[in-house]
């Protein structure tokens, strides 16, 4: 069920009230109170997930059991090699499941096209389970962290299942680390008024970003992208900018709802977005966008590959410092490309996502080579940073065109469509009132995110509620559900 659906509006209060009144207050003196509360979280999460398709539950159950057993297997293995084998086996099986469901048909089609054969008999037509990319990565992080001894393996299958299937973050993240989330299911939670109120405010803000900003941008963007060849350059440009806000409103809105919902249950999830469109360069953008995924790739791919400080082979060290320094730079560049391409491919089985990843890698690498990728580590933006922010924003908008286009040909059509004389005409707008309302909502969103907090004013909360209610009639999916 979607967060902005009627079913969730009924589901959440029931689960919230049962969670605190039955599985906390009512059985507080019971020795197994925590077990029962976690079990309730599992049941509620499986109901939430199974609402899409009950068959999806089989896969997440398999991933849960395999990852749980891998943690115990790593603990019980006597040798380091044995531990590594168990970890690798878990990674291979889980990535294998993900690979089959997400990428098999894509590669089968590419193979068929390459050899000019009929692809129908090769395809499996598997339905992509919602959230599989997210919970698979979450499960992998557990077994890797156990292997690295960053966390003790749990013997509590209920707590582990609750960690992996916790419904607020199950289908579109944040991709939680076991070191953060699992311990929260292993200790008692107590209702915290401030945390709960904060959670409600975050849910409200997330719904505003999704329903008022993202869904209204989608109304314009979808029409333009459905028929690129007939659009003027200015229309294409406007749609690209609106998509930039659509994907941010959609994804960060979802994350806010997820984090806010988790707070209602006394659980703290990691921050997933940190006002990325105010970034001063691409490196900062990638520290602020989809933080849970980028840090996942950093910790489990980039650093194991050597990161930006690989071990220099002795034979190169012998050839001098400059040679060694060049080697380090080359490895850092290679690793950067690897994680950006993987990140692109993670988003979906389409070359446009890989192209998007490669584009960002090409933007990032010069900063890395010039040692300027850590220039803007602070959060203190000045008005003088605005030109840099605008340039970064433009570069990001260009990247989103690759991301949104349905295929490479559409990508090319889109860019060539922008660069024509009609770029200097007014964009075609069917519903100008709606467009201006959307722009106003985007401005409100940017102002509040620049100030980093939602002012505690009842009139603002009512205003957001009415705006959400006004636009709630649209049926638009979350973009990241397709990943």
């Amino acid at each position, binding site marked *: 069920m979607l967060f902005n659906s009627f079913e969730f509006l009924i589901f959440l209060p029931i689960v919230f009230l049962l969670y605190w009144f039955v599985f906390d207050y009512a059985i507080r003196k019971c020795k197994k109170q925590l077990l029962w509360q976690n079990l309730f979280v599992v049941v509620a999460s499986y109901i939430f997930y199974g609402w899409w398709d009950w068959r999806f539950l089989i896969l997440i159950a398999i991933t849960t059991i395999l990852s749980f057993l891998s943690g115990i297997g790593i603990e019980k293995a006597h040798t380091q090699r044995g531990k590594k084998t168990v970890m690798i086996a878990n990674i291979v099986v889980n990535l294998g499941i993900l690979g089959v469901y997400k990428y098999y048909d894509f590669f089968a089609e590419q193979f068929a096209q390459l050899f000019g054969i009929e692809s129908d008999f090769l395809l499996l037509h598997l339905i992509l389970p919602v959230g599989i990319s997210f919970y698979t990565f979450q499960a992998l992080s557990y077994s890797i962290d156990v292997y690295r001894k960053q966390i003790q393996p749990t013997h509590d299958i209920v707590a582990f299942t609750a960690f992996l299937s916790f419904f607020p973050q199950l289908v579109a993240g944040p991709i939680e680390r076991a070191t953060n989330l699992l311990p929260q299911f292993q200790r008692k939670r107590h209702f915290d*008024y401030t945390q709960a109120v904060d959670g409600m405010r975050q849910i409200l803000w997330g719904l505003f970003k999704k329903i008022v900003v993202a869904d209204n941008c989608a109304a314009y963007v979808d029409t333009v992208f459905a028929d690129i060849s007939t659009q003027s350059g200015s229309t294409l440009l406007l749609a690209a900018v609106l998509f930039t806000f659509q994907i941010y409103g959609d994804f960060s809105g979802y994350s806010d709802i997820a984090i806010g919902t988790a707070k209602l249950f006394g659980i703290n999830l990691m921050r997933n977005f940190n006002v990325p469109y105010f970034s001063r360069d691409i490196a900062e953008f990638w520290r602020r966008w989809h933080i849970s995924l980028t840090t996942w790739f950093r910790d489990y791919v980039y650093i194991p590959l050597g990161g930006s400080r690989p071990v220099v082979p002795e034979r190169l060290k012998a050839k001098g410092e400059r040679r060694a320094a060049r080697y380090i730079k080359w490895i850092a560049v290679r690793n950067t490309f690897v994680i950006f391409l993987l990140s692109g491919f993670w988003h979906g089985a389409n070359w446009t996502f890989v192209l998007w990843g490669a584009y960002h890698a090409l933007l990032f690498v010069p900063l890395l080579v010039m040692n300027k990728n850590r220039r803007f580590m602070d959060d203190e933006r000045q008005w003088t940073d605005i030109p840099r922010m605008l340039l970064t924003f433009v570069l990001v908008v260009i990247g989103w065109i690759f991301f949104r286009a349905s295929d490479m040909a559409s990508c090319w059509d889109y860019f060539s469509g922008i660069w024509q004389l009609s770029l200097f005409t007014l964009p075609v707008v069917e519903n100008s009132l709606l467009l201006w309302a959307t722009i106003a909502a985007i401005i409100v969103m940017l102002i509040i995110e620049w100030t980093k907090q939602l002012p505690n004013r009842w009139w603002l909360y009512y205003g957001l509620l009415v705006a959400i209610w006004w636009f709630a009639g649209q049926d638009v999916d979350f973009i990241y559900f397709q990943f």
Partner: protein
Amino acid sequence: MRRFLCKILLYVLPIFLGAIILELIVEHIPNSYTYKRAYMDRYADSICTLVLGHSCAYDGIDAEILPSAFNLANSSQCFEDDYRLLVKYLPVMDSLKMVVLPVSYSSLQMVSSSNRRAYYTIYMDIYPRWPISKYSFECFNLELLVKKCVKYLLNTDMVQCDSLGQRLGHTMLNRPIDWKETQSLIANDRFVGKSSIPYVTENIEWLHRLAELCENRDVLLYLVAMPMLPDYRSGMPMEQILLMEQVMRSMAQEHNCVRFVDYQEWGNEDDFWNATHLNTDGAKRFSIMLLHDLYNKKSL
């Protein structure tokens, strides 16, 4: 916890009360659905020709011209809606001889949006209102609610159809075709790709059920490919056009009571108010032709 729940109620209660009040107001505003339901409840037993389907039929078929006909079509009415309407009224339609169901290039991919499904639930009672769902009330869409209330207060005609169910309004008047709008229509109606496949399968199933209902009652079901302008047809993907034609032809082959008639190339620019919908004059001409073709050519 008590403080938290009180705070939530403080914010939610005014919204909730406002929603109830608006819902009560808007459910008392007459509309085409309430009119058509009242007509069917009263005169269903005297109808010989029933027109179902979406806006192409709502605009394009003048029931005054067909014998003892009524236009039960409505905007974005999908095959499931048509089926459920027929299930509800067929038992009392003793005089029914023919059902006219228009089809277009996007019919197979069409499903009800939530606010339209709510109209069929609340006003036509063809979907269950309980247990409660997002289709049970109109109040989930504040924008539409407010617009309806404002129009009603400004004495706008809310029913917007004539006595036999055909749409009335400024859109039906003759006017030059807006070619930019045609491009928008094409963009909106293109459904090529995997995402539409589940709806196609479902809609074919609903068509079969409609045909079986008609077969059991010895009623003819005419699947009518409605007229559209050549520019619109040429902008649609060929596979989508062929899919519609293939499905309709196979329906006619599989069911004795089903006939497929193709009027896609009928008419000229003066007959349309947009690329896919006939205007008042065009609807009259088309209905006269339909009368001749369906009533003279069919065998009862």
